[in-house]
């Protein structure tokens, strides 16, 4: 704390002009233009020569930079040429939520837990009765992909393991109506979701 700027600090809060400008005048010659500003000294500034001889002849510095660049050329490439080179997400990946389809019907029993737990209020459904063993099924099941935040709470809440996060990460829609995914787009067969279902069984 030997710096003059820190010592006179308490009134710096009230009068910050001098505070901020004082070091500018001391160490940064560039700040002294012809414009007079409070706190900036108009005395001519002398540029401190703190470059070493090697730095002044400039060539070694350039060579140093080039060495780094050339080294980089021979290191393995880090980037991926995306649309051509696909990326395979790990099983833990949370892509868009889908409904699990088993033997041609969805597992969902339209209990509404996922809709209740969804923090973004993205899920909407309408329940109806079915002669199947599960008795209830969702007549209409919609996830608004503009609202969904991919949090994974629906997957966590579902008692039937009927809604899971798939590995699909490319979502394209041309208008707002397309972004509301109905059952036609949400249903996905268990074969496609095998890795995720296995992962969930292990993790939970």
């Amino acid at each position, binding site marked *: 704390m030997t*710096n003059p700027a*820190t010592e006179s600090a308490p009134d710096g809060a009230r009068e910050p002009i001098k505070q901020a400008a004082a*070091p500018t005048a001391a160490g940064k010659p560039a*700040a002294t233009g012809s*414009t007079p500003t409070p706190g900036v000294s108009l005395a001519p500034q002398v540029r401190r020569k703190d470059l070493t001889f090697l730095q002044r002849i400039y060539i070694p510095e350039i060579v140093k930079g080039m060495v780094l660049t050339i080294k980089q050329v021979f290191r393995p490439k880090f980037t991926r040429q995306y649309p051509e080179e696909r990326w395979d997400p790990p099983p833990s990946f949370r892509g868009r939520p889908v409904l699990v389809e088993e033997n041609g019907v969805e597992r969902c029993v339209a209990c509404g837990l996922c809709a209740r737990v969804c*923090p973004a209020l993205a899920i909407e459904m309408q329940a109806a009765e079915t002669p199947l063993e599960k008795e209830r099924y969702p007549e209409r099941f919609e996830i608004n992909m503009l609202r969904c935040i991919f949090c*994974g709470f629906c997957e966590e809440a579902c008692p039937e393991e009927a809604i899971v996060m798939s590995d699909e990460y490319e979502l394209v829609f041309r208008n707002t109506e397309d972004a509301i995914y109905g059952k036609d787009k949400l249903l996905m067969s268990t074969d496609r979701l095998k890795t995720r279902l296995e992962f969930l069984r292990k993790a939970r």
Partner: protein
Amino acid sequence: MDPRAITAEPQARRPDTVPGLGRSLDSQEMVINMGPQHPSTHGVLRLELVVDGEIVVDVIPHIGYLHRCFEKHCEHMTSYQQVIPYADRLDYVAAMSNELGYVVGVERLLGIKVPERVEYIRVIMAEFSRIVSHLIAIGTYGMDIGAFTPFLYCMRDREHVLDIFERTCGARLLYNYMWVGGLSHDVPPDFQESVRRFCRYFKPNVKELNDLLSYNKIFVERTANVGVLPAAVAVNYAVSGPALRGSGVHWDLRRDDPYSIYDRFEFDIPVGLGLKGTVGDCWDRYMVRVHEMEQSVRIIEQAVEQLPPGDVQSAIPKRIRPNAGELYARTETPKGELGYYIVSDGTASPFRVKVKAPSFVNLSALPAMCRGAMISDVVAILGSIDIVLGEVDR
């Protein structure tokens, strides 16, 4: 605010005459806008600059472009758990740290103790997110000043951390990983090995970064002695985080008000020393971040060696219904002190959640740092505070 009211004040502060030169050099002030779509304002921040030629007389930040009603939103959730994905989105480059602050708060409110393994994994994740956040801060700071290469290097290193995050919790940016009382998933079996591999890989890269940027002549010229924030001014403005430590104040909540299990680890708290100029200049704030990354690696290495076995979900309560009461929980995020003030009325959803966002508070000290600087220095000063607009506007 009436813009004329803004310009009136700095003019009143100006001396009528320049000593020895009379009134002849008196010039006119001009108001210019920087942002909201300016590449160096790191998001949608509008700065109203009152300039006298090239010298900045005053800066008025205008915020709110990214306001998402986080606090009001929390009151309308059906449970405390649902706030977590939204807490992620406060400081979106260090989402794990935000989650940690929130879950620590709710757990204190509930009075539950989480298993050891959970604590260790949380600390590792929070420190990883500190590294990620500082890498972005450093990379974009270099880019603001005109050095493009370090940005790419920082992004490359960040990818490795994001890969670890992704394999653990399934997301690269917004994790929803720390839950009240536990974690959403256990870490993958090869977690410890991948963390060790990252630490081995990352340590030499800090040296490379120092060679490339930190001690670069041009970079030092642009940042040293610029935007000096004296310690007393920083404290008066309640600045926290690297911006406060850059001014030479030893204050870090991980050590001074330990939460989670930070009291078990050995780490140093780097502060600004004024090596290249004045204590509290932009270079000091920058360098504190570089050193903090090294310290984070140290904490991670200790934590991953001590990682105990166990179940990460055993303590997750079935119903989260804290007794009526209130609590302020503060944690040290990469940006500074993040505080959650949670009020419970005994129901399943919070009655009120107030967030004390470090970026917001640090931004308030910007005018004090910018007055008297050049216009191009404003970019350097703003980058050195490292704000994230998601957190400023909430």
